[in-house]
């Protein structure tokens, strides 16, 4: 399968959809009782309207005025170095999302220590002190915030 694309087409399409969705959501998300011409909806409407219009312009620019890359999707593409790199970024994002779910039940110390270890493994760190330094830092940060700044971390 052949796909012709550029970043303008992808981002233009995404923001056109986001802009249209937010425009439609505005009346339900901003229930104002103001009767004046300028209300709580005015600036968000300008921002969202602008987002939609500029996204359409970007999409058109991407289709008609910018050079496109050609991507041929085959089974080999899933084994390529580029695809593996993209997977690494997604894995990293996954770590952060999992952390969001863990930080409340496990608390800052344990959840952050787990995240630190996961990142070190991700980068393939082998030396023990590579693990020890950031882990110690988690403890130090906890003490600084908890004891000195009186911020009770979760």
């Amino acid at each position, binding site marked *: 399968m052949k796909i012709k694309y550029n970043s303008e087409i992808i981002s233009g399409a995404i923001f056109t959809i986001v802009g249209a969705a937010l425009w439609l959501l505005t009346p339900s998300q901003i229930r104002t009782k103001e009767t004046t011409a300028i209300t709580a909806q005015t*600036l*968000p409407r300008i921002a969202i309207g602008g987002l939609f219009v500029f996204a359409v312009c970007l999409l058109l620019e991407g289709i008609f005025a910018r050079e496109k890359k050609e991507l041929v999707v085959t089974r080999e593409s899933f084994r390529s170095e580029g695809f593996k*790199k993209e997977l690494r*970024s997604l894995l990293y994002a996954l770590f952060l999302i999992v952390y969001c779910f863990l930080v409340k039940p496990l608390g800052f110390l344990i959840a952050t220590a787990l995240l630190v270890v996961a990142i070190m493994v991700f980068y393939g760190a082998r030396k023990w002190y590579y693990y020890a330094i950031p882990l110690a830092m988690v403890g130090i940060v906890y003490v600084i915030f908890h004891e000195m700044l009186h911020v009770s971390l979760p």
Partner: protein
Amino acid sequence: MEQFLGGLQVLAQWQNFAVIPLGLAIGIVVGAIPGLTSDLGLILCIPLTYGMDPTMAILMLLAIYCGGTYGGSITAILINTPGTSANAATLFDGYPMTVKGQAFKALQMALFASTIGGLISAVSLLFLAPPIAKITLLFGPAEYFALSVFGLSVIAGVSNNSIFKGLIGACVGLFMASIGQDSISGTARFIFGQRRLMAGIDLIIALIGLFAISEIMMKSQYNPKTDHKTVSASAITKDKITKDEYRRCWKPIGIGSLIGVIIGATPGTGGGLAAFIAYNQVKQSSKHPETFGKGEIEGVAVSESANNGACGATMIPMLTLGVPGDGSTAILMGAFMLHGMVPGPSLFAEQGNILYAIMLGLIVVNVFMYIIGSVFTRFYAHITRIPYEILAPIVLTFCIAGSYSTNNRVYDIYIILIFGIISYFLRRMDFQLVPILLGIVLGPLMEKNFRRAMVISQGSPSIFFTRPISCAFILIAVVSVVVFGIRSARARKRAQENEAKQA
């Protein structure tokens, strides 16, 4: 003159010179931790000043304020995360300089420019406070709105080769700024049933997510075996600022300091806006605008001189009119009151000696800042030698703890991580994050004053063009966008011609 000499006498006590370095050290550390602002440093240290005499107490707090504004540049330069929102413009060239192996030079210039900006600001406070305060009194909603439009004109200069992407970024930023409770009508906006979003998205939370987390994500493809560059300790500090670079930077520092003083003296603005506007002006007037954003030392000089230039100037409306210009000066105003001084027109008459001691002390604060900063800059620069696999989790830990401490809620941790992931994908699609930041910073100021101005003019937009200061700001904004457009079109044409010649 009598009060001036009296102020010198009050200042010349050894205790005053002892608390200034202490305040600076606290300020620099607090400013350098993403998520902790000088506001937090001020709040935490006010109780320490209860037993001090007023001059000593205010000088220590001023040292924290100035140190915090400078300290934020350290992380902006080294890890692409501004410690405070005032240092956001330092990212443009500070971090690219680090990437080019010029971290020490960037840190040196940040310190130098911060000191000069701070000194000019302190001298302005000393001699120009009353006349500047009179000018800023002329600012009404129309002028503030025009000022924020002027600030948004920076987008043209930071959008690289796609103005539409820059404009989309600004719209995203403006939209994000509108999330939460509307400050005028109290209406909830885009909270999607989440009561926690009623307070809106904190600026520092947005900053950490946009810049720090997305930067960590961008490095997720980093391979320690091939990408880690071993740099010797001597090589880092060897690359010092040359005489020619100092000569080149005098003009940007002058412009930055001047804009810092003017913007800083305008209530409700602050060092962050001053830095953006000054950066844009210097970039546009430069003979080589294409080098800005790619590690241009003049970019670091202008943004740091502007934000520190605003430090002393934010005290002008507070001391002369009793109007605090930003969060930090509001806290400082509280500290003044705690020590028996009520800022306002009568303060100069009632406690002139102490006031002059404080204003003169601000000059001493900046001199000390340069001395302390010079000693520690070498140490900071070595952070770039730490292997990234160690640095990334440490930065992440600070970001998480810092974001939590902003409002003491886990929700802000979610926001930085989600913002970070979204910003990462935007960066991968060649979006610049600065327009988003500009939208977030300027959105509230713009909306509030737009609505107020429209109420005053009974719905007629002519108010923005009939008032001279407002009209001037809008004209300058339009002219600067047009000039930038023409210059970049010429640059593109030249590049195409060069390509054609080479082909």
